[in-house]
């Protein structure tokens, strides 16, 4: 379901200013936004999209595949529990700054209920030519064109850069999956790679990682078994040790999680390392 391109979407926190900006963009792009939730604003509508007081009321009236959350960090845990209890099976969390112990509990409850959580701190999902769920500039033609490459990224801004390089090289993007820059996230790089490997539309993969944690190391072991070429760009080589670089998860303590170690283990397992964004396109031209 992560890769299905025409999902029915619920937007939690739909009446906020930033939410309305993005709902309009997503709507224009063709995303099937069924409903929104904003406590106390039930009965209103945004761009013709009905607003409900609770997830429970929304799911009574609509089939929902995915919920997209424009909710303040301190309210994310509650909104996630509400979505899980409402029976929604995929949750996309944009907020940056959710307490990590809240995330820990949400992920545990989600896993017990068979729910996929993407994020927190994800830029969202783009299915070029079909739909967009999140805060990626899907409407920019030199960044997102339909095609055959799957992109998975911890970062939104570097995800834009990578997608742009894919398109500049003459390819298009089948799926862009942002997984988020937090210390703990619901969907890891390797889980997205597993989905990419199974998907017939995808002929090549671009993996965007950054310093910190062990997600890339874990992904490398799966790369070895993949039939599709993987190009990896890992940010943070010139970042200092022990300082968090904008993303809560982008921090190296000791030797674990350095860019060098990630690049080495990825290369050892058959991934192709791009040192700069432009090298992504060059490598794809050779490999795909």
């Amino acid at each position: 379901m992560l890769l299905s391109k025409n999902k029915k979407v619920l937007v939690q926190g739909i009446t906020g200013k930033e939410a309305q900006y993005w709902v309009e963009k997503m709507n224009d792009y063709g995303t099937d936004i069924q409903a929104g939730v904003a406590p106390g604003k039930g009965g209103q509508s945004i761009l013709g999209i009905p607003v409900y007081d609770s997830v429970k009321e929304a799911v009574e009236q609509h089939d929902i595949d995915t919920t997209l959350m424009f909710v303040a960090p301190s309210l994310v845990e509650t909104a996630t529990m509400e979505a899980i209890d409402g029976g929604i099976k995929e949750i996309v969390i944009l907020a940056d700054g959710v307490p990590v112990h809240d995330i820990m509990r949400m992920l545990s409850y989600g896993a017990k209920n068979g729910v996929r959580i993407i994020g927190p701190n994800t830029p969202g999902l783009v299915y070029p030519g079909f739909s967009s769920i999140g805060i990626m500039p899907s409407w920019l033609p030199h960044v997102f064109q339909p095609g055959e490459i799957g992109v998975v990224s911890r970062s939104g801004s570097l995800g834009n850069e990578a997608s742009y390089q894919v398109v500049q090289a003459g390819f298009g993007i089948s799926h862009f999956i942002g997984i988020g820059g937090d210390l703990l996230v619901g969907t890891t790089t390797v889980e997205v790679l597993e989905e990419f490997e199974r998907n017939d539309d995808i002929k090549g993969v671009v993996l965007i990682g950054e310093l910190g944690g062990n997600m890339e190391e874990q992904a490398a072991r799966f790369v070895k078994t993949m039939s599709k070429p993987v190009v990896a760009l890992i940010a943070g080589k010139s970042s200092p040790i022990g300082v968090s670089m904008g993303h809560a998860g982008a921090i190296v303590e000791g030797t674990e999680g350095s860019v060098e170690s990630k690049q080495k283990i990825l290369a050892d397992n058959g991934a192709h390392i791009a040192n700069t964004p432009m090298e992504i396109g060059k490598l794809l031209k050779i490999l795909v």
Partner: protein
Amino acid sequence: MRLFEYQAKAIFAKYGIDIPNGQLVDSHDSIGDSAKKIGYPVVLKAQALAGGRGKAGGIRFAKDDMEAEGNAGILLGMNINGAAVSSILVEEKVDIEKEIYFSITMDRAAKRPVVIVSAEGGMDIEEIAKSEPDSILKEWIDPTHGFHSYHAIDLFKRAGFTGDTLRKLSQLAATLYKIFSEYEAELVEINPLVITRNGRVLAVDGKVILDENGKGVKEFQIQIDAVRDEDLMRYVPLEGDVGILANGAGLTMMTMDVVAHYGGNPANFMEIGGELYKKSEEALDFLLTRKDLNGVLVNLFGAYARTDVIIEGILRSLEKHDTDIPFVFRVRGTGEERARKLLMENLNVEAHDELDEAAKEIVMKAEDYRKRRV
């Protein structure tokens, strides 16, 4: 937010964990009094927010006042991996029977907290992983269920402990999980956790990293209040001379990397993504307070952040500053056309399409500027 050792130990003590008898001292005059109260021989431990303290010589011993004062003087002037030493923790010297490694942290791949134990403590966990990998035991925690003393009994039994030591270690482990949860920590580590010859179980060191978004940091509010404006702009100073201004954490890190790839030295990390994009004037004002820059690379890839609004702010800042250091721009994404037009009209500068090209140019121009300066 990383806590000092003495802060970590104060939390441990509050929860009933045994720690060495000790006092915090911030001048070498008062060191003798403190050491006498504790009783010689003592250990002097430099307090700094950095790892690698032992190797850097930040832990010293003293058997009398003269040694204590001499060593305190050395420690207080020290810099440990970039972190200044502001105080010394004076502690009793303990009689070590065995050193254990113990930590609770977030396992990012498993998406759960994990308890890590090794009966071969004292070294860094990375060193233990290399030299004694089989001694490392892990137990993953379901956060909705918690980590209780019976989980810990099982774990420490596997690590080879028995009897009263097993009971004490297990209680301590469950208490540490309580601290981990109640303080919303990212890491709680005791290394070494010491068993003394007379059977005490002592936290001889303590490392606690709190989630900056969590509730545990509130207790350390003074440190939070001291956060500078540039922290709000997500600024990290580096040693190089090429100033970096970009939007989004990932893109900013990559901008630094590409500058370094082409032989340049980034002077900073500074990102103005999300809502911060409206603050580009303040961001550049701040960056230009640095007098060691030989060039600035502005790399923008607009989505929600509008590149034209960012460029407007940069132009306002440049108007205020009489600077001749070279600027190179790379602009793509939302607002691109207007941003390019603004740059052409105001600075007569053509923005690059590609980061690689922009990085090459700023590295070259910064090099020229540096030569002209000398």
